[in-house]
């Protein structure tokens, strides 16, 4: 692999994906993906469903395994490492410790239903980092205030709207002080009137300089917030660049078609 020869020294790359390939039996869903994300950068991944964008994102914190290529987060290998020239899976401990630095927000929120909002946000710091309760509580309350959910700290997730749950899920991921946040179609399951409140939180995060990789269908968010837009289709990166350039002047028919279908939807 020629990528292996390239220096991994670019220290401002928080996430570096090189030659990522993955198949489900005979179906290849990722056909060699190269994406790097710099500190403070907001990268929005666009693409039709089935383009492999969510799978790619889930590889970054190793919720999905992959067949070829490398992913590093702050220079640390994700999932596999080379030992004497052979590719070996890293230990469960290493995976867990790496994931502490990668925040993830899911389409279906995945809050812990048996814990209150506050306990959900405290879960990471207390149970993973071993922080003491009072300190974790302070951090959690600050984050809940930031996402506008401090008034529901003692509620159980089941009582919240989808938008509220998703904002709590963002706070829960932030509580680990991750170096990068992954957003996996986080507004797709929401009623249209609740999308705005979640996007607002994400926009604020971006403005604060959080490094983010966002898989979404929200064209407005891509155009307004992204530093870079990556268009994926059929398991490859088709186009990438600053949104004002590539979204106004797409170079490929595939991206042009995608944009016209989606922008016409939004009116």
């Amino acid at each position: 692999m020629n990528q292996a020869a390239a220096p991994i020294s670019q220290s401002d790359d928080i996430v570096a994906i090189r030659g990522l390939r993955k198949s489900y039996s005979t179906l290849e869903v990722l056909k060699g993906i190269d994406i790097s994300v710099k500190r403070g950068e907001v990268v929005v991944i666009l693409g039709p469903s089935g383009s492999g964008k969510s799978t790619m994102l889930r590889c970054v914190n190793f919720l999905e395994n992959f067949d070829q290529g490398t992913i590093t987060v702050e220079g640390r290998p994700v999932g596999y490492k080379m030992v004497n020239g052979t590719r070996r899976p890293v230990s469960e401990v290493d995976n867990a410790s790496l994931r502490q630095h990668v925040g993830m927000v899911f389409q279906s929120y995945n809050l812990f239903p048996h814990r209150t909002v506050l306990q959900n946000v405290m879960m990471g710091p207390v149970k993973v980092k071993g922080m003491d309760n009072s300190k974790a509580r302070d951090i959690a309350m600050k984050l809940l205030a930031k996402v506008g959910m401090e008034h529901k700290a003692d509620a159980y997730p089941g009582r919240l709207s989808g938008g509220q749950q998703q904002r709590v899920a963002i706070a829960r991921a932030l509580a680990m002080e991750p170096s990068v946040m992954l957003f996996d179609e986080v507004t797709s399951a929401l009623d249209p009137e609740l999308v705005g409140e979640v996007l607002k939180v994400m926009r604020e995060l971006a403005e604060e300089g959080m490094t983010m990789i966002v898989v979404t269908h929200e064209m407005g968010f891509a155009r307004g917030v992204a530093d870079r837009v990556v268009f994926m289709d059929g398991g490859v990166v088709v186009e990438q660049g600053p949104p004002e350039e590539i979204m106004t002047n797409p170079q490929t028919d595939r991206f042009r078609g995608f944009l016209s279908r989606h922008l016409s939807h939004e009116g």
Partner: protein
Amino acid sequence: MFPVLQSNLPYLLQGAVYTVILSAIVVSCGTALGVGIGVLASVGGAILRSIITAYIFLFRGVPVLVIMFLGFYSFPALGLRLDAYTAVAISMIVYVGAFVAEATRGAIAGVPTGQTEAAKSLGMRKGKMMREIVLPQAMRLVIAPVLNISLMAIKQTSYASIVGAWELSFAAREVVERTLAAFQIFLGVMLIYFIICYPLSLAARALDKRLAFDS
């Protein structure tokens, strides 16, 4: 009105005490064993899992009475002298354990994958994830089936009388053999069992209904 039942009631109630004690031991130990095995089946390796699958298949596919006979006759064969009551208790614990293990395994599998993915994303390791996220949710799902299994087990403690362990059903047969008042005694004994079982049966049904509503 029922002279034979009345005069033998104290004796029968004494039997009922043995039934309740046996039930309590079997249900509590069987549940603990079953939950433990169910958890092991969910975290263990392939070999452990297939051993547990075989255990569940065997004990769920064979009548409890046969398991009792096995317990009753094979402990002495191994050189252990146990009384019938203990042999029955051990056999039933292992039997109930298989049912609870199956229910636990199902409940753990029933916790959505999104939950474990969220836990992993926080950097949680397997053991902690099991303790903090999966088990608390699975245990809720397991309460209703465990109540139904307990109900089954309480009624099955009566089979202990067949292998010679003295409890309510054994006492009932003794009284009937002496007095021949089969209707009075057996109907009375059914009533005693009913009183023991009914609260549990109500709880199981209420829970079933509530879970049906939740989903």
